[in-house]
């Protein structure tokens, strides 16, 4: 909405400049409202649920802050951001093409299992940096390979990728579990987990902090993905495919090839996230049945960031704090951590509603449903003249156009 039709290079008159500024300001306000309101609403609704369960919501959210940010705990949140960021950009790439890679859990679990399985041997036998690179590549390759069946089915037969990626995901999680309990099992202990990599052979921290260097790699990946998506022909092709597959075919884009390559990139980034997760100083091993399912919780934030790789960063930071602090807060309050899933689901639901209201606003209506606006006006001014009311006319015009009462 902020585009203006000024000729390039023409000096801006003060009035036009003011108008432009005002438009940019409303646009920013709009984006802010659309991104933040769903989160706030979900936190409020989650608070009500907490109250219904007999917990004090303020205590709970206070604990989230204490354990997720206060003192040095923000560093822990920052470490947990790394896999979340990589998954988020991996999903951004493929969602841009309007393709649904919902197999992130399997891709992540397999990557994690293989890195944890081969890691202890590789870091001992190879130069450390080379082992890290090799393990990251291995995880990325496995993540990408696990998207291959859905990608080819989608590219050749147009099979719904939501189903195929989900099914592959379930198989992947089971296979990872099997690998951990079977070939990769640490022979010296009874718990089903892999051999642990020695602490001094894990990713080194950034000097002066306890955050490991993979955070820098993750930020670099965000920048690269953002550049590719916004400044290259590949990014444009993805965007066209996402906006309108028919137009993409007319433009002469090789759709099967683009579909498969976007799947592979997405899977590789998610697999890389698993490598960062296992090699971070907190872990060094994985345990069967305890591989996290980060992707489920990250999806809403990818949408809230409007599929923009840079905008993903603050949202992921928010969720990293929420999950790091929320895990501790939930155990303090004797709640299952699945409470966070409820919050995430609520954020998604509220986001779709706010999006809907925002679309109406772009069409000339208000954020509030038309009937509500009129009702509010009616209570304030006893005798309104609806026919002369510009907004009401616009709103009813939209209603007539779209056939929604």
């Amino acid at each position, binding site marked *: 909405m902020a585009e203006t039709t000024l000729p390039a290079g023409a000096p801006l008159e003060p009035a036009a400049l003011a108008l432009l500024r005002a438009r940019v300001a409303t646009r920013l306000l709009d984006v802010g409202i659309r991104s933040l309101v769903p989160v706030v609403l979900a936190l409020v609704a989650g608070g009500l649920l907490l109250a219904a369960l007999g917990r004090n919501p303020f205590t709970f959210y206070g604990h989230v802050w204490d354990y997720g940010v206060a003192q040095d705990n923000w560093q822990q949140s920052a470490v947990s951001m790394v896999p979340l960021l990589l998954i988020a950009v991996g999903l951004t790439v493929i969602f841009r093409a309007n393709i649904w890679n919902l197999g992130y859990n399997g891709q992540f679990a397999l990557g994690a299992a293989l890195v944890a399985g081969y890691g202890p041997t590789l870091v001992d036998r190879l130069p450390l940096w080379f082992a890290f690179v090799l393990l990251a590549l291995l995880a990325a390759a496995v993540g990408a390979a696990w998207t291959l069946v859905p990608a080819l089915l989608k590219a050749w037969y147009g099979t719904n990728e939501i*189903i195929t990626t989900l099914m592959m995901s379930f198989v992947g999680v089971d296979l990872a579990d*099997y690998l951990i*309990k079977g070939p990769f099992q640490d022979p010296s202990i009874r718990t089903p987990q892999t051999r642990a990599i020695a602490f001094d052979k894990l990713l080194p921290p950034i000097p002066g902090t306890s955050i490991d260097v993979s955070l820098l790699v993750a930020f670099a990946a965000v920048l690269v993905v953002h550049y590719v998506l916004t400044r290259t022909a590949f990014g444009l092709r993805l965007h066209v495919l996402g906006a309108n597959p028919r137009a993409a075919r007319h433009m002469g884009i090789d759709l099967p090839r683009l579909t498969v390559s976007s799947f592979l990139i997405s899977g590789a980034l998610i697999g890389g996230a698993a490598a960062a997760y296992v090699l971070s100083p907190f872990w060094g091993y994985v345990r069967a049945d305890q591989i996290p399912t980060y992707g489920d919780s990250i*999806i809403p934030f990818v949408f809230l960031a409007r599929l923009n790789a840079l905008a993903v960063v603050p949202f992921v930071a928010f969720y990293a704090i929420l999950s790091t602090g929320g895990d501790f807060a939930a155990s303090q309050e004797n709640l299952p951590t699945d409470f966070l899933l409820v919050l995430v*689901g609520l954020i*998604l639901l509220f986001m779709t509603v706010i999006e*809907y209201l925002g679309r109406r606003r772009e069409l000339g209506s208000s954020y509030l449903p038309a009937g509500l606006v009129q009702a509010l006006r009616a209570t304030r001014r006893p005798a309104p003249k609806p026919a002369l009311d510009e907004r009401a006319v616009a709103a009813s015009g939209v209603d007539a156009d779209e056939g929604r009462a």
Partner: protein
Amino acid sequence: MSQLFWTTLVAAGLLAGVPLMFTALGELVSERAGVLNIGLEGMMLVGAYCGYLGAYYGHSVWVGYLAGMAGGTAGAVVMAVLCVWLGLDQIVVGIAITLAGEGITSVLYQSQFSSSQPRLGAPPVDAVPLLDRIPVLGKPLNGQFPLFSQPMLVYFGLAFAALLAWIFRSTNVGLNLRAAGEKPEALDAAGVDVVRTRTYATLSTGALAGLGGAYLSVVGAGGFQPFLTQGQGFMAIVVAMLARGRPLGVVVGSFLFGTTISLSPVLGAAGVRNIPDNVVHMLPFVAIILALIMFSRRAYLPPALALPYVRGAR
């Protein structure tokens, strides 16, 4: 193969197939009406939890079934309002319902029952007279209940599938539902409210998914566990997709995939014991992927699927 093996095979396939059948029949109704219901997993879980509550406090499986249907319908109300009335993205809303359903059932169960984890008693079984003496198909053996010795709901479910096939083939209601998915504009032009048709379809999908979930917790598992459904909601979508819109295809597909879900007792009866749990657990999904690789060109989805209907829009 022994009689025990075959009886176990039939019984296990039924036990795991019935929840899948109800849910997939629900998805079928919804898909034919043009609403892709990705939230099925969440609705099933809510239904499973409500069904468990109903059966536990109501001391009757029927109270459980009804509570499960109510719970699933509650999830479907969200879907109907957001996707059918407001025309929002069905996939995003579906994911949201699944996540919220998983989270809320887990939180509620663990905060209510985490210490006691009460189990439900074995459900009453209604044998069909005479037929229940047929070996393999009717005669219970070793605690396994095959086709003609099942809870009453199973017979109702099979009858319902036949009824649904008839509704789709030869009634106006079925024609309206199909038109809402094939060409909603035509249905609108014929004077039938597309939004209302799709709303009814979505709500009945929720009720059926809830019933499937309730059967899973009340009869199948004899209790509730967080994440009890383990992806069966998504499997139901595949079953409905491969059935190409035919309810009887759903019945056959559900029982085929049902046998793969509950393969461990069958393998036990066959004397195979050294296969790891994870591999057995993987098999239904592998079966689905193989089925999709082989038959996905023949799967049929209505053209207006997942597209919100906006009157007058192009």
